[in-house]
């Protein structure tokens, strides 16, 4: 892990990053609570979340901003599945119905790219030259772990923009279209999570199609963590809605695991983008 490389990457995105962090060490000290059990792959992301404490929040104001943000995420997802289906490391394990499922998901991501590009017209941002997913395709298990992270992150990203679109007046039914993509991403996420239960994926039979507490199942923890502000974008283990603690506040006692699983939480665009940039080079 090269922290300075990460900071320089962040500087490309946000030239003022060093002004926001008075000292590079403040990013490191913010990482003091990282569990030793955390997968090494997640460490750069944890740094991303440390930066978020200084910079995260939704700062997209126009519908075109939201659509270009969605387009970048969809391009990333399409590239991820396209590279996976072409990766020689996955040729053997990714077969039969598993391959068909990933092909279906890839087709959906491509359709989303096409739809968003078409909606944006001349306002569409140029595509990044390349997405480098590092060692994501090393094993079938690592591929599915990343897939879960990207799908769950995608669901959170779309959800986090719903009020922005609504406030912008929902031109051309953009809100409905965004939610029709949002629910497709959730279907993908549920299926990928279920694939991880399979023998070749490591027999991880505790993984459910829905998000229990903020369990990451080996995916980067910040994908399930709080955004900024945390009051607006709580972590996935959130048990409060509308100011109510649902485990005890609605007439009966409910298990926090069930309450957290019954609601998916949104995430601000800065947090989402930082998580993506911490995992993928583009």
């Amino acid at each position, binding site marked *: 892990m090269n922290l300075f490389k990460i900071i320089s990457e962040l500087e490309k995105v946000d030239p003022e990053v060093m002004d926001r962090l008075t000292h590079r060490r403040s990013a490191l000290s913010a990482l003091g609570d990282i569990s030793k059990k955390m997968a090494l792959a997640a460490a750069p992301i944890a740094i991303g979340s440390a930066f978020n404490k200084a910079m995260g929040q939704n700062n997209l104001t126009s519908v075109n901003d939201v659509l270009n943000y969605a387009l970048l995420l969809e391009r990333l997802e399409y590239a991820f599945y396209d590279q996976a289906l072409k990766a020689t490391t996955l040729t053997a394990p990714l077969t039969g119905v598993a391959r068909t499922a990933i092909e279906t998901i890839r087709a959906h991501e491509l359709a989303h790219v096409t*739809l968003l590009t078409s909606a944006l017209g001349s306002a569409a941002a140029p595509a990044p030259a390349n997405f480098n997913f590092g060692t994501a395709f090393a094993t079938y298990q690592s591929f599915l772990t990343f897939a879960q992270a990207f799908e769950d992150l995608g669901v959170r990203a779309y959800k986090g923009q719903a009020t922005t679109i*609504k406030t912008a007046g929902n031109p051309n039914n953009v809100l*409905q279209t965004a939610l029709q993509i949002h629910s497709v991403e*959730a*279907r993908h*996420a549920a299926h990928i999570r*279920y694939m991880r239960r399979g023998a070749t994926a490591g027999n991880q039979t505790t993984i459910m199609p829905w998000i229990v507490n903020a369990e990451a199942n080996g995916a980067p923890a910040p994908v399930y963590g709080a955004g900024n502000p945390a009051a607006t974008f709580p972590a996935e283990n959130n048990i409060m809605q*509308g*100011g109510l603690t649902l485990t005890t506040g609605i007439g009966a006692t409910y298990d926090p695991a069930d309450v957290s699983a019954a609601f998916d939480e949104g995430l601000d665009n800065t947090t989402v983008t930082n998580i993506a940039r911490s995992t993928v080079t583009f």
Partner: protein
Amino acid sequence: MSDSAFSFLGRTLRRRSFLRVAGATAASSALVLAGCGSDDTETPTPTTPGTLTFSNDNLGLLNYVYLLEQLEAAFYQKVVSSFPLDFTAADRAAFIDLRDHEVIHRETLKFALGSNAYDANAGTNALVFNFTSLALTSRNEVYAAARTLEDVGVAAYNGVAKLLQVAPDGSHLTYLKLLVKLASVEARHAAFVRDQVQASSFADADVVTATGVLAGLDIVKTPVEVTALIAKYVPVTLVATSLPTI
């Protein structure tokens, strides 16, 4: 409740204004749905056919979603109370989860609506859903029924968000945030139960458009379409034509 973001829902004085009952049995039917008033001398029975008309506002939309969650919770509760004989331990655990999620959705919406819930005063006369049209004796039948209900739920949530009417106090955004948090969980449910009926059918072309300009988009239905689909499970006539359409 007073410190809840939902608390303004209980403030309106036009309580149950969206609940209107048509026909000759109007008086008794209204009381079946709304609870018995003290001046009521009749003894209405829950089987009296009534009409539930959703109002042309955000409360009407929320009651519509509340009814859907009631329906889903009742379905899973029915299955959980009498599992098919060929249900595995994993099936049972999953259905208990599904039941719990839907009950939590239902109770959250009920609490949010407070006195504006269409059945706030129904007491023991709350709607009893009718699942006799569903074959529920085998694992496959139960999962297929769940697939039908969950896909309707996904379509309903995808259609309802844009209909929320802008409110000066910003409450429409509070509702929107809540609804989208539920929507993706319903989609996860739908994908899961679909996969159990048929492997890898989580996003087949019957729900996610595969070709053309709408490719990659999930199913969406209007409240009028959804209420028609669920009518057979609901013991009263649902009227969704008054709900906002844009």
